[in-house]
């Protein structure tokens, strides 16, 4: 069974559009994250949610809005997409004492 899943895997869209990426984890973890990996493979945290509450919000434009309907889901909605938003977005979850994060397969977003 997939521990952390994301949909869609690929997303190609025009500038100015609004799009969403969904993430679900079946590990029973309380904390979930969104990371952005740019074209140089650099990984940077965007958001962290714990039990549906936002606990980390890095300097991300407010066009990005995470939504956590329950602790197993953390979706990412992006308004007014820009060329610079093109990247791979990874969802992750963490649980237990040992702080091991489990990553989803990633969503490759291409903005034309």
């Amino acid at each position: 069974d997939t521990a952390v899943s994301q949909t869609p895997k690929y997303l190609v869209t025009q500038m100015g559009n609004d799009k969403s990426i969904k993430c679900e984890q079946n590990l029973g973890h309380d904390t979930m994250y969104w990371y952005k990996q740019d074209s140089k493979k650099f990984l940077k945290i965007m958001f962290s949610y714990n039990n549906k509450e936002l606990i980390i919000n890095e300097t991300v434009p407010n066009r990005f809005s995470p939504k956590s309907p329950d602790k197993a889901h953390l979706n990412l909605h992006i308004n007014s997409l820009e060329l610079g938003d093109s990247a791979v977005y990874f969802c992750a979850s963490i649980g237990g004492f040992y702080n091991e994060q489990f990553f989803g397969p990633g969503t490759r977003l291409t903005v034309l």
Partner: protein
Amino acid sequence: AQSVSQHNHHVILSEAASLELGCNYSYGGTVNLFWYVQYPGQHLQLLLKYFSGDPLVKGIKGFEAEFIKSKFSFNLRKPSVQWSDTAEYFCAVTPISSGSARQLTFGSGTQLTVLP
């Protein structure tokens, strides 16, 4: 805030060569340390992790890493690489502290290319 440095951006080796990738972190307190691997077009997979105890940790696929606290280092090693080890390798750290953030901070990654 913590930070992680990976000084080798791209390493090219021939098969059967030995590998060592450097990782240094800066943080004043206790940390958990990780190495992740990302094969081309794939997601991040955990190679190994250090939480406490023996500073030499063994991971999957013959990889190991040694935590040297005095040097704030957690270098990744493999005695003999294979072509299939070609991938991007990320070192990461998370502080052991109160609170629920448990934020992972990644290094910039090292691209390993193994020539057949």
